[in-house]
C-alpha cells in the first residue's frame, strides 16, 4: 500500500544525450501544490513525463496511487489536433468514454468559466502562443482528474491570464494534487506548498515554501540568490 500519491523509488534514467536522472527517491505530499524548480536542463520536465508515464525509468519505480487515467498532463509545448478549440477540448473526454452530452456540458462550462467561449469554433492551431498555452491549461482540466501535472503552464501568458491560472490552482489545491514546473521563482513562492529543487538530474532538496528561503544547502542558496535578486 502506498501512502503517498506519487512516490519515486531509486529512479534512474539515462537519455541518448547522456543526461541522466540519478537514483531519485522522494515522494510528493498528498495534496496541495508541489513545485519543481531548478536550472534549465536539470531534469524537471523529465520528472513530469516519468510521472505521466510518457517515458519509463531505466531503473527503479514510480508508484502512483491513482489510476493513470486520473492524471492530467500539460506539456511544455502544447500540441493541438487539426480541429477547432471545442473539439480539441472534447477529444480527451470522448476517448475516455464520456457521452456527448456530458462532454458538451463540461466543455461549455470550462469555456465560459475561462472566458474562452468566443474562440470555441476557431482552429486551435491558429491561436496566439498565449492563447494556446491557456487552452492547453483548460484541456488539462477537462477530465477533472485527481492529479494535475503542469509543465510551465504560465509561460507565454499575460499577467491577467497568469493570475487567473494561479487563482484557479489555489482554489482547487485542497481537492487535488498539483505537480508543477516553473521557471518563475516568484510564482513558486506564491503557489507552492512544497518545493523540490533539482539540479543535474539529482534531487537537491525538498522543502516548504517558507523553509526554502532559510535553506542551508549551498546550491539552493546560490540558485535562489541568482534567480530572485
Amino acid at each position: 500500500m502506498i501512502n503517498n500519491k506519487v512516490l519515486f523509488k531509486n529512479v534512474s534514467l539515462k537519455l541518448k544525450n547522456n543526461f541522466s536522472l540519478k537514483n531519485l527517491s522522494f515522494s510528493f505530499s498528498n495534496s496541495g501544490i508541489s513545485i519543481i524548480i531548478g536550472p534549465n536542463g536539470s531534469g524537471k520536465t523529465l520528472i513530469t513525463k516519468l510521472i505521466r508515464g510518457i517515458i519509463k525509468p531505466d531503473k527503479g519505480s514510480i508508484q502512483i496511487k491513482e489510476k493513470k487515467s486520473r492524471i492530467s498532463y500539460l506539456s511544455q509545448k502544447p500540441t493541438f489536433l487539426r480541429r477547432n478549440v471545442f473539439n480539441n477540448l472534447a477529444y480527451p473526454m470522448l476517448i475516455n468514454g464520456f457521452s456527448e452530452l456530458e462532454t458538451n456540458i463540461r466543455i461549455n462550462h470550462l469555456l465560459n468559466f475561462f472566458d474562452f467561449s468566443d474562440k470555441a469554433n476557431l482552429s486551435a492551431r491558429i491561436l496566439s502562443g498565449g492563447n494556446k498555452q491557456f487552452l492547453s491549461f483548460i484541456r488539462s482540466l477537462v477530465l477533472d482528474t485527481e492529479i494535475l501535472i503542469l509543465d510551465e503552464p504560465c509561460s507565454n501568458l499575460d499577467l491577467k491570464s497568469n493570475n487567473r491560472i494561479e487563482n484557479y490552482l489555489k482554489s482547487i489545491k485542497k481537492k487535488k494534487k498539483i505537480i508543477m514546473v516553473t521557471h518563475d521563482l516568484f510564482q513558486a513562492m506564491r503557489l507552492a506548498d512544497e518545493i523540490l529543487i533539482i539540479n543535474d538530474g539529482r534531487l537537491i532538496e525538498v522543502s516548504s515554501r517558507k523553509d526554502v528561503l532559510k535553506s542551508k544547502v549551498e546550491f539552493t542558496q546560490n540558485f535562489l540568490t541568482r534567480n530572485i535578486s
Partner: protein
Amino acid sequence: MEALIESVRLILSLDENLYEIIFLSLKVSAIALFISTLIGLPTAGLLSSTNFFGRKPIILLFNSMMALPPVFVGLLLYVIFSQSGIFGFMKILYTPTIMIIAQIIIIFPIIVSVSTEVLDNIFKEYEEFFDSFEVSIFRRVKTTLFDARFSLITCVLTGLGRALSEVGAIIIVGGNIVHYTRVMTTTIALETSRGNLTLAMALGIILIFISIFLNFLVLLIKTITKNNSYD
C-alpha cells in the same frame, strides 16, 4: 493533324466501342483504387503510429515496391494464375478481376508509401499528446488519418493516376480482349502498333482530360476544405 481531328470527331460521336473501353478502364481502376485505399490507409496509419520491430524494413519494402516494374507484376500473376499455376483453378486469367488484382499490387505500395510520409509528420507532432492521454493505437490511427484527410486525398489520387496509366501488367494478365478486357492504355498500345492512330489518339486525349480533371478535383477539394481543415 488529320488523326487528331478524326480522334476529336470520334470522341464527339459518342462511339459505343470507345466509351465501353473508357468505362472499363475507369471501373477497373476505381475498384483497384478503392480496395488499395481501404487497406493502404490503415496500413500507413499503423506504420506511422507504431514503432514495432521491423517497421523500417517494411517501409523500405513498400518504398521499393513503388518502383516495381508493372511488366514483372503481370508476368508473376500470369505464372501464378495460368492453368498450370498454383491458383490456376480460379480461372481468372484474362478477366477484369485479375486486372484489378494487378493494379492493386501496383498502386497499394504507392498509397502506403506516400501516405506514410504524410502521416509520419502528423504523428510525430501528436505523439506526446497521444501518450499524455493514453490514446489507444486504434484511436491514434483513426485520429491521424482523420486529421490528415485532406492531404491524403492527393496520395489516393496519385494512386488513381498510376492505375489509369498502367499498361504493362494488365496487357499480360488481361490479354486485351475486345469487349471484355480492353482498356484505354492497352488499346492505345495495340492500335498504335496497328497504325490506327485515330482511336489511339482519341483515347490519349481522354486520358489527358481525365488527368486534368483529377488535378482540378484535387485543387477544388483543397480550396473548398481549406476553411474546414483547421490546419
